[in-house]
């Protein structure tokens, strides 16, 4: 035993800790290596490619020519007249931007209207039934998005279930044209993204201390005032998270507007796809993608700002 103690190497004060910290850091890098590889290969790399492509010249059959050009970025907002090269606003693009933005906002609003009461209902169920309702909310995720969207098509097309029922009971005499309208896109997106609103709001309501609501009533607040002054501020983080989760993918939605909006009512995602496909203008497509990303970033920064201010306050 005395031998063991005498042979133990001696350390200066703090040296052991520094050694341990260094080993800790090495381990940390090693452990996060797989994640880093995936991030570099799947996110940072392709993003860099997009940035580079957006400054190149379109090839004749798609692809790019390695000549520097700003045409891709210019083309996002303006278009050149084929005959005299005068510039004018790209009305088609602008209307698509506007449709994307307004439909995304409307979708977010509608998911709020339907999602908050749904989340509230689930969170106030007895624990055993909560699991069941949550399970129901997640069921749509099990099916392919395309299949779900086509199911919506079955509902709203001219010979679809809704029109058939309305015709049968005599509310309408002609089928309502719902397919290939903005309504169809909004309806479809609301359906598709509703769970993304319900789940974070549910998490917030589930955490809510209902004694606070009792305290509000006890202090002479009616139902509506208690909701506005106590419940709403406390579940706001969930509502904001849900709104971001719905708004961001809505902005870049592709399948739903494609199937339900037809060829006419394009959204941002379809416009991008068009440039890489039939449009054969990869630099424009790349520039549009980056624009979409910028829009998403702006809304995320807004989210971070709001929540961090909230945290700083309380």
């Amino acid at each position, binding site marked *: 035993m005395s031998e063991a103690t005498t042979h133990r190497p001696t350390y200066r004060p703090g040296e052991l800790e520094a050694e341990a910290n260094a080993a800790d850091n090495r381990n940390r890098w090693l452990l996060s290596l797989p994640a880093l590889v995936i991030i570099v290969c799947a996110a940072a790399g392709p993003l860099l490619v997009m940035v580079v492509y957006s400054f190149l010249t379109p090839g004749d059959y798609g692809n790019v020519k390695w000549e520097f050009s700003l045409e891709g970025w210019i083309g996002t907002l303006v278009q050149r007249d084929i005959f005299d090269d005068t510039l004018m606003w790209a009305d088609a693009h602008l209307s698509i931007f506007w449709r994307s933005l307004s439909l995304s906002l409307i979708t977010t609003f509608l998911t709020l209207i339907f999602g908050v009461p749904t989340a509230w209902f689930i969170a106030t169920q007895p624990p055993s039934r909560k699991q069941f309702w949550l399970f129901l909310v997640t069921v749509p995720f099990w099916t392919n998005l395309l299949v779900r969207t086509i199911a919506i098509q079955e509902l709203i097309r001219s010979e679809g279930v809704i029109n058939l029922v309305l015709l049968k009971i005599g509310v309408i005499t002609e089928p309502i044209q719902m397919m290939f309208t903005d309504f169809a896109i909004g309806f479809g997106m609301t359906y598709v993204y509703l769970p993304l609103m319900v789940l974070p709001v549910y998490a917030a309501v589930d955490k809510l*201390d209902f*004694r*606070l609501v*009792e*305290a*509000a*009533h*006890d*202090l*002479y*607040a*009616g139902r509506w*005032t208690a909701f506005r*002054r*106590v419940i709403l*501020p*406390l579940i706001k983080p969930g509502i904001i998270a849900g709104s971001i989760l719905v708004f961001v993918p809505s902005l870049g939605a592709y399948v739903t507007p494609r199937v339900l909006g037809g060829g006419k009512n394009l959204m941002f995602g379809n416009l991008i796809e068009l440039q890489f496909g039939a449009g054969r203008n990869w630099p424009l497509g790349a520039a549009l993608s980056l624009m979409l990303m910028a829009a998403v970033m702006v809304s995320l920064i807004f989210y971070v700002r709001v929540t961090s201010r909230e945290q700083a*306050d*309380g």
Partner: protein
Amino acid sequence: MLSIALGAEVIFPTKETRTQMIQIENAKKTFGQGDSAFTALRDVSLEIAANEFFTLLGPSGCGKTTLLRLIAGFEPPTEGAILLSGRDISRLPPNQRPVNTVFQNYALFPHMTVGQNIAFGLEMLGNPKAEIAKTVNEMLRLVRMEELKDRRTSEISGGQQQRVALARALAPHPQVLLLDEPLSALDLKLRKEMQIELKRLQNETGITFVFVTHDQEEALTMSDRVAVMNAGRILQVGSPRDIYERPSERFVANFIGESNFLDAARIGGDVTLAAGGSFAAAVPEGVPEGKVSVLIRPEHIGVRGGQPEAGELPARVETVVYSGDTTTLHLRLATGEVLKARIANAPDIDAAVPAEGQDAAVSIAPGAVTVLRD
């Protein structure tokens, strides 16, 4: 007999002259339905006077919090009525009752400052802004929290949160303040301070306090009157002294303080212990003559070494437990019953009490014997 008469005078000094604030008439509360139904309150009737510090005392699950929630309006009674100043408020929602609650875990609004919390009730009542600001400052001064007005409730200690909860509930100047075990989350020293603080606030505001606790010492220290509850029923209502010295049944005696229960025979106001000795005793209503159970508090028993004289009982000392300010002796009586005696310690305590295994003479203080209803 003299002591009983004295006791009776001490118990309800001004009962008839007080005006009633809360009347609970045959309140019953059942949760759930069918087989899973649970009855939290069975036929509770109670009167609480204006300006009274009234305590509901009982073990957890006895229904005391349910009764408080009925008064607050968070739950409607299944049967019966709750009257406030003579008006039936049984079906009024909580926001229409001039009653405020201090919740067990305070339930302070985490997204508001201390000042905003206190102002909340006043804002809901629609008071003018200037008046609200004035009352908030008054309340902060009352609970000695002036400098913490703009703090978040998460940034203050448990004791301070407690004070904010009190100030918030007192600010609208309710007719009744309900307190649901408000001190249970505090440590012992802070709890003692808050007990005195609560008593002071009640005196200064003149508001009727209804206080719920499972801590018998808390109940005895602060209350004007105490209702002891068990299994959804009120067993006894009385002053702290009444409850402690004249418990009506075994549960009450056992729940409050330490007790000796002995077998005895009663004839009129006199009982004869099975272990010997005859005493005048307090007798609650409805106890038949004959074999009864009596209570003697350990501190009402005297012990000395040697053989018993007249009026004393023979016993053998089994254990002697020293605990700082007192010494507790476990005495075996001739009947085999064990009697606990607690003696205040003096510097020469070893000489004063007999040692373990020795014979002892036990004396019982006059008026210390109480007959129990069982």
